[in-house]
């Protein structure tokens, strides 16, 4: 099970009927699940009513590894909104998971951003905000 780090997030987490289960499972059970299509046997992201590959509605959430490779990453150093100022610098990344989909997350414990390589292997850590009552995806270099 992925490690949990306590954090203060810059904004509330806006969820929808299509991803509520993902974030609820993350917050309450710290289990990483991905949308999965039973018709074409592929994972996809983000969660949706139909499979993005084949259009089938035979989709469910299935536990996944949380392992992958960084696709891209940046480090925000400027307060584009006043509420983010105290959280800077803040690094974000996209990660190609071993299961296939590319997901979005915070990059944590990375040192010097300019020395982090694309395609570096990473694993999931949960970033939990007790005050806001939510948990989001973070990634740490293996």
């Amino acid at each position, binding site marked *: 099970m992925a490690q949990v780090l306590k954090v203060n997030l810059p904004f509330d987490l*806006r969820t929808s009927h299509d991803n509520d289960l993902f974030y609820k499972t993350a917050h309450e059970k710290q289990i990483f699940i991905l949308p999965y299509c039973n018709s074409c046997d592929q994972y996809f992201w983000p969660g949706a009513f139909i499979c993005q590959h084949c259009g089938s509605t035979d989709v469910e959430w299935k536990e996944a590894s949380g392992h992958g490779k960084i696709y891209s990453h940046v480090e925000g150093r400027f307060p*584009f909104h006043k509420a983010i100022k105290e959280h800077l610098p803040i690094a974000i990344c996209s990660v190609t998971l071993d299961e296939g989909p590319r997901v979005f997350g915070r990059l944590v414990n990375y040192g010097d951003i300019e020395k982090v390589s694309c*395609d570096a292997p990473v694993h999931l850590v949960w970033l939990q905000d007790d005050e806001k009552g939510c948990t989001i995806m973070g990634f740490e270099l293996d």
Partner: protein
Amino acid sequence: MDRTELRNKYSIVGVGYTPQGIVPGRSAASFYLEASMNAINDAGLKKEDIDGLILYRDFPILKGDAFHHTANVVTYSLGIRPKFLSQESYCYRTNINKAMGAIENGTCKYVLIVFAESGRTGRRTWTDEIDTFGNQPYDEYAAYGNISAFTNYAMFARRAMHEHGTGPDLWADIAVAHRKWANLNPNAIQYNKPLTKADYLATPFLSWPFRALDATASTDGGRAIIITTTERARELKNPPIMIRGYGSANDTSKGWQLTPGDPASSAVVAGREAFEMAGLGPKDIGAAQIYDCYTYTVEATLGDYGFFEKKKARDFMTVENIGPGGEFPVNTGGGLLSEGYYMGMTPIAEAVMQMSERCGDRQLGVMPGTRLPEFMIVSDNGGFYRSNETLILERGK
């Protein structure tokens, strides 16, 4: 349908500018009206001739405006009663497609496309959707700290560093070349403000690997163009600037999902369709006006159009090649980066002005060492590079 039948059937016949840059005390509505009337006058039309109106896209309203700028409100003050009316709610690129379509299907004769903003004095932050919803984010990614277009384009560019060997050294040249063009354009916001590569490199990263100079900035003002058939255009006062080739593609999804080098990107698809309709290739094109919301966007677009192999961008994207006096002039008014942010109206208006030889000190064919191009390529992109309209323009007689 054989799209080559539409080759040079449509033309751009008028361009409307307004005061621009920092223009306090003016509503966005006022710029919509002024830019529209200036385009109508430039074309030698009466406002009653305009039977199609396209407001470029909708943005949240800012201080200084009493109402939301929807197309049906602007028509009332403009005193016109169009048959075709349209405005995108988001960042898709369909304006030229709709304008030509509304004429082709017999609904309209003259379609006006206009964009206006009071974003500079109105302090648009590009995160205002957060505040619009009462400090509630508008998507799940804000909680992760991803709240600006800047960040998404920086992610796109950072992956391209890995894939194609680009980076700040090349983007500095793009920023400097645009500034050199702007220094020749008295309308440009960055006129009289020279920029060197050392200046660029000395500025801090706002979102590594991008600096402020990698991005366009909000502005006040408006800009408009008018499209009609080339047959009607020949009766008007300006030389028709003909649409020889046109392509569009509107791909899906969020900026962080962008994939540099995607062989089916919107720019690749729209560019290929425009070249096919025009019966031309990159070697036939004499200059380009490229949607340059960010420095890297120019490199990505020209690479996707096939002007160079992506790993050889460094050889093509030099100040000497794309700047004033260069072999392949790009964004000759200074572009969105240094002239002014009027979305796709910035590149298309500059293309029309160049092709009709109205560009003063920066006029191609007049500046030493330059030629007036026979064909010019123009791009408009939106939705984090996911939407693209491409035009190949030719001067008509």
